[in-house]
C-alpha cells in the first residue's frame, strides 16, 4: 500500500465510519484524485506567512456564571437507548 492508502485506512479507523469493501476501493481511488486535485494549492508560495485561524474577529466573548437547569425530558427522548437515567452503550470491557 502506498502512503495515501495507509493514511486512508488510518483515517477510516480514527473517524469510525463503517464502509463496505466496494466503497473502500472507491474511496482509495477518489483520495488519489482528490490529492492530485489539491496539488496547485500546495504549490502556492506561502513562505513564513501566518495562517488565518478564525473567520471572525470577535475576542473574549464570555458568559456570566449563572447556572441554569435545562428541560431534560426533551433531550433524553432523542436518545436511542436511555434507561434508568443513563445513556446506554454496548458493554465496555475495562
Amino acid at each position, binding site marked *: 500500500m502506498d502512503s495515501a492508502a495507509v493514511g486512508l485506512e*488510518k483515517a477510516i479507523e*480514527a473517524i*469510525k465510519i463503517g464502509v463496505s469493501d466496494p466503497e473502500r476501493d472507491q474511496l482509495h481511488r477518489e483520495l488519489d484524485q482528490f490529492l492530485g486535485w489539491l496539488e496547485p494549492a500546495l504549490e502556492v508560495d506561502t513562505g513564513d506567512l501566518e495562517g488565518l*485561524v*478564525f*473567520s*471572525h474577529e*470577535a*475576542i*473574549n*466573548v*464570555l*458568559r*456570566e*456564571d*449563572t*447556572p*441554569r*437547569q*435545562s428541560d*431534560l425530558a426533551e*433531550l*433524553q427522548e*432523542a436518545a436511542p*437507548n436511555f*434507561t*434508568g*437515567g*443513563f*445513556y*446506554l*452503550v*454496548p*458493554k*465496555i*470491557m*475495562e
Partner: protein
Amino acid sequence: MKYEVVIGLEVHVELLTGCKLFCACPNRFVPEPNVNTCPVCLGFPGILPQMSREALQQALTAAVALNCKVALYSYFDRKNYFYPDMPKGYQISQYHIPLGSSGYLEIEDDRGVLKKVGIGRVHMEEDAGKLLHETAGASGGSSMVDYNRAGVPLIEIVSEPDLRSSLEARRYLEKLKSIMQYAGVSDCKMEEGSLRCDANVSLRNPGEEIFGIKTELKNMNSFRAVEKSLDHEIKRQAGILDSGEKVATQTLRWDEDRQETIVMRGKLEADDYRCFADPELAPIQLAETEVEKARHNLPEMAGERAKRFVEEYGLPEYDAGVLTASRCLADYFESCLEFFNKPKEVSNWVMGEFSAHLNNAGLEADQASFVPEDMAELLQMIDNQEISGKIAKEVLEKAFQGGKKPRRVVEEEGLLQISDQSELESIVDRIISENPDTVESYRGGKSKALGHLVGQVMKETRGKANPQLVNELLVKKIDSQ
C-alpha cells in the same frame, strides 16, 4: 538505588465555577445521573459553546499562583477522539497555546533542601462524563453513561520532569493542592475526583543526559496511592533494567486492592488527536494589566498565612505550619476564633483531636459535621470548668461521629463536671479513709502520692470531678486531720 528516577506529573483540577465551561449547566456534584445536562454539553447539533468568564478568571488565577508566564493571546482547540463519555467526539482544550507556561512551585527535596519544580503548562479544558459498567440490572450487557461531569471546567497542570523520587512527587502534589485551595480555584479533593493525577516515570543512569523509556501511571486515587504506585513502578523498572532488558512504553493502572500496577486495557490513548482551533469559540485576549492585577490580587498563600498566625495569634511556628498546610484547616481554625478567641487552645484542639478524627474519617475540615461553632462550644465548656479536658475528648468524639451538639452530648450522657463541694467532700473523705498508706506517704513529703489520691477520686466520679477542686479538698482535709 543505582538509577536516577525521573518523574513528571500531569494533574487535572476541577475549577470552582457555578456553571460548566461552555454552558449554563450547574457545576456541582449530584447523585442522580444526567441531571446537569443541556443541548450544549450533550453536543446537540447546531448548538454553539459559550465560554465562561469565571472559568477564565480562575484559570488565570491558577496560572499566576503557579508563577506562570501568561499568554496574552490564546484560544481553544479541539482534541478529536471517540469515547462514549465525550459527547461531541472531541474535547475542547487549549492545545496550541496554553494560558500559562514556564511556571514553577517550590518543594523540599529528599534532603530537605528547597527545590523549584518547573511547570511546563497550565491550560483550560472541559471534563468528560463518567462511565459505569454494570453486568446486572435493567441495562443488561450495557455500559452506562452519565454526562453530569461532561463540560465541567478543568485546568491541566503539567510539571517538567523535575521530580526525582516518589516522595518529591507527593510533596509536589501536596504543595499544588495547597496553592490551588489558597487561590480559591479548586477544592482539590482527590477522593472525589476534583484533583486527578497521572504520572510519567522513567529511570536513567546518574549523569546521563537523555531520559530513559517512560511509562505512564493512571488511576491513583489518593496521594498515598501516587507515592506507592510510583515506588512500585520504580522498583519494577529497575528490575527490568538490572536484567539488561528494555522498559516497554506502556500505560499502567494502579490497582489499589492488589497494590500493584497493571497494564491498561480498554480505553487506549489515540496516537493522533488531529488538533485544530475550535472555530466556534472566540480567542482570548488579556491585557498585561489584567495579568498584573491577577498577580496582585492573589489570595494569601500558606506561607504568608502561617506567618500571620504567628504574628497575629502568637502561635508557635510549628502550630502555624500545621494549621496552614491545608486551607480548609486554617479556615476552620480562624472560624473557631470568631466564637472562642483563645488561639493557642483552639490550635491544640484543631491540630490534635479534631485532625485525628478527620484523618480517621478521611474528611477535610469543611466536610466535618463538627463545625467551628461546635468546637467553640466545647472549648467554652472546658473554659467554664463545666467539663474536664479528658471528658471533652470523649464529647468531641461523640459529637464528631453522631453529629450532635457538644452540649447535648454532655447533657445526655451526664458528663457535667462535679464542682459541688458538698458532693465531692463525701467521696474525698471516703478515699482518704480507704488509702491510709498513701495519705501517710503524702504526709511524709511525697507529693506524688497526692496525685494518686486525686486519680482515685476522678475514677470514682468517672472523670467528672473538677480536678482542681479535688486537689484543694484533699490537701485541706489531710492537713486538718
